[in-house]
């Protein structure tokens, strides 16, 4: 069994699976259950300043998107930060950290955009023995209307300013949690870095309306006949989150800042993917809210088995291994030719590949009278849609044409491996350097 021990900003945890700041980490009771189940760390649900706590709605707080068999694919919520008194949370954090010294306990914070409230709360958090703080600049509903949460996260100057205050008033490692509700994640990430943040975590939830009640003509979750946008999370947001993680990891202005990856992590594989793109650890919420804390056991055993198979001795070994492979479209090899291939032994003859290709793509699949489906190499552009709609995993695969083979669709001979042509060398590119352009017979 590979050792899953993780060190993030000097914070030790037995594995890289933390629970994100959210309802599962709102109380001592839940956090103790999480640690007993095996979670490596928690980011305690966001604390606000002392005084009367925020008030949550008492109607439904969540909306959902389901896949087949009512599998929960996306969850949205309109819950605010903790609605329990600050001192209660601080006492509980102190007790839990004392009882679980080997687990990471990070405290999420959100107070008004003024230096004094930040100074005050940081002093109190330090007394709990917590390992670090995470600045909630992401919450997209409710708190943003009061100038906090994503209202800060959407203005890089504010991110930098608050981060600077936090670093000035506390020695604790500081993670800045980023909102995806912006046009370019690099601006906020750079601002966090400039402000002295030790790490960024992303993504927070996405502005969303999950469903509309067609009887009441109101968005859901519906509170007394009205609804508001909520924060979207769960497996459905993973692709968006991974892109943002990769952008930060590969961009020279932000590269190198430690990343805690968040967004739809449900299995060990999701975690490995986030980490391969540059996250040092991951935070999980929806999977735990869907299946309970026990899911971490599959994440632990799965990641461990995979690390053993790949020969990774530590979770740090594979962080960022896929980052250099993330590039801009213009650098992709336009002479890399593949063709779909249907394994007739695996084919169950549902014909979905045919319908997809014939109706919506390139008419590159042939259907015989007796329902044998074959790829027409002279029409196949290798779009991969047939692979994606096939219900049998591995039944349709993409075969790469070797150098010297002819692409029957274009008539082009596949060039040697070191002779690849990207858009930058392509004759159809009006901006390409004519001296660099490589013309192939096609």
């Amino acid at each position, binding site marked *: 069994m590979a050792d899953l021990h993780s060190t993030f900003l000097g914070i030790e945890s037995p594995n890289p699976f933390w629970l994100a700041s959210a309802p599962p980490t709102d109380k001592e009771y839940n956090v103790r259950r999480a640690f007993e189940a095996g979670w490596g760390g928690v980011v305690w649900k966001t604390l606000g300043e002392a005084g009367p706590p925020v008030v949550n709605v008492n109607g439904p707080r969540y909306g959902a998107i389901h896949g087949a068999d009512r599998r929960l694919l996306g969850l949205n919520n309109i819950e605010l930060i903790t609605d329990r008194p600050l001192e209660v949370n601080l006492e509980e954090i102190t007790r839990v950290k004392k009882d679980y010294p080997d687990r990471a306990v990070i405290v999420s914070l959100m107070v008004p955009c003024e230096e004094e409230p930040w100074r005050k709360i940081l002093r109190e958090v330090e007394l709990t023995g917590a390992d670090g703080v995470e600045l909630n600049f992401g919450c997209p509903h409710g708190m943003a209307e009061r100038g906090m949460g994503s209202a800060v996260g959407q203005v890089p100057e504010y991110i930098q300013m608050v981060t600077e205050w936090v670093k000035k008033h506390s020695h604790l490692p500081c993670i800045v949690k980023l909102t995806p509700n912006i046009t370019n994640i690099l601006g906020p990430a750079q601002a966090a870095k400039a402000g002295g943040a030790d790490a960024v975590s992303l993504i927070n939830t996405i502005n969303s309306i999950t469903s509309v009640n067609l009887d009441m003509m109101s968005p859901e979750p519906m509170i007394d006949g009205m609804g508001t946008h909520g924060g979207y999370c769960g497996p459905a947001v993973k692709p968006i989150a991974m892109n943002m993680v990769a952008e930060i990891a590969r961009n020279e202005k932000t590269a190198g800042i430690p990343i805690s990856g968040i967004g739809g992590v449900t299995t060990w594989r999701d975690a490995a993917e986030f980490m391969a793109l540059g996250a040092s650890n991951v935070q999980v919420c929806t999977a735990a809210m869907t299946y309970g804390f026990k899911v971490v056991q599959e994440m632990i055993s799965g990641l461990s088995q995979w690390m053993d198979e790949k020969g990774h001795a530590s979770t740090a070994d594979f962080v960022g291994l896929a980052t250099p492979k993330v590039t801009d479209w213009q650098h992709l090899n336009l002479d890399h030719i593949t063709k779909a291939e249907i394994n007739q032994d695996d084919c*169950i*003859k*549902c*014909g*979905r590949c045919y319908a997809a290709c014939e109706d919506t793509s390139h008419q590159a699949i042939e259907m015989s009278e007796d329902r044998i489906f074959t790829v027409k190499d002279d029409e196949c552009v290798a779009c991969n849609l047939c692979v994606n709609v096939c219900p049998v995993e591995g039944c349709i695969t993409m075969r790469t044409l070797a150098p010297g083979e002819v692409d029957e669709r274009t008539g082009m001979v596949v060039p040697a491996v070191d002779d690849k042509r990207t858009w930058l060398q392509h004759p159809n590119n009006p901006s390409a350097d004519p001296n660099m352009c490589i013309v192939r017979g096609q």
Partner: protein
Amino acid sequence: MSNSQQTPGIVPNRLPEEAYQDNFSDLHPRLDDHEALVAADRCYFCHDAPCMEACPTTIDIPLFIRQIATGTPKAAALTILEQNILGGMCARVCPTETLCEEVCVRETAEGNPVEIGRLQRYATDTVMEAHPFARADATGKTVAVVGAGPAGLSAAHRLAMHGHDVVLYDARAKAGGLNEFGIASYKSVDNFAAREVDWLLSIGGIEVKLGQALGNGLQLDELQTRYDAVFLGVGLAGVNALRCDGEDKDNVLDAVEFISDLRQAEDLSSLPVGRHVVVIGGGMTAVDAAVQAKLLGAEDVSLVYRRGRDRMGASEFEQDLASSKGVRIITHAAPTAIHGNGAVAEIEFAYTTDGANGLEETGESFRLRADQVLKAIGQTLGDANGLEIDGGKIKVGETGRTSRSGVWAGGDCASGGDDLTVTAVAEGRDAAEDIHATLMGG
């Protein structure tokens, strides 16, 4: 005084009162909403779906299942009923394991097809309260439909829908044909056959006249002078004889009559059944009779068929059903003599083998105790009023045209197609469309 399974002779009340209710309850109860959604989720929405091709009425199965999955079961019901007005009964009696479900791609993939029959029942049950179709403007044309079984009902409904006035004749005192008189009770509980007929007739424009049959009150010549067209769905009125010694002994009965009596019985416990019952035949009727004899409390029931299991008309599912209810299936045995003093006491069989010149007796024989013998060895056409015959049935073309202009036929009485409810519905519908085109085109 109550009897037991061991009481000699043919007697009622062999079982405790409550056993009848259990034994004759719904074979495949209606799916509840959750079960229907789970079952519907499994459909792959195949292109040019094999299930649809396998359905004699060509119901768009992927579409109706998707309509269930998206919360519109009434729309699903219309998809079914537009093709097959007796979709409710077909959902209950179709041998789906040899039709749609046999070719389901999930049967190919996992050996576990989508439960198409039960989903069809789920959908159709939602519209049984009110008739969903309306009649077209009256055409002023009249059509006689002879036989109110599945073929006649289907034809009558389609003709009425097109605006023709239909008179529906039947020999029996009740409409429904084999749906009402010839199908095992546990496949059509709660008087469904009669309720479905009432629902079907509620479209209007169909006058039912009972107690009249071809050759018994009705003659083609006369019908043709009174109506613009005639459709015959008269079924098979005769029963094949065993042609062995002792066939005329008491308690040697036709299985169809046994089933019919059972279906019409108000109180199943009052139905007499033998202690030792032997059913001769290998089709659906044989299984329906054998299983029901067992469920009525016969101590032992043997189903004896002269050929191998693979040649039996009853599907593997039906054979398994019989075995699971305690029916002993004996194959490769042909009856040679029925023994007994007045009433049957034993029946003698010769073992058979498939020889070069067809079925041959091996020379070995055996006897079974029997106080009741049920013959289910096929039925024959009754009076055909001089129409051309082909293979013992009324010769018809593709849309049911007989040798006589203006006369169509369909269902079991007509040549071609399997003798199934669903096939009869398809033939009645297609003949009705041709009659409509003929009447309106002329």
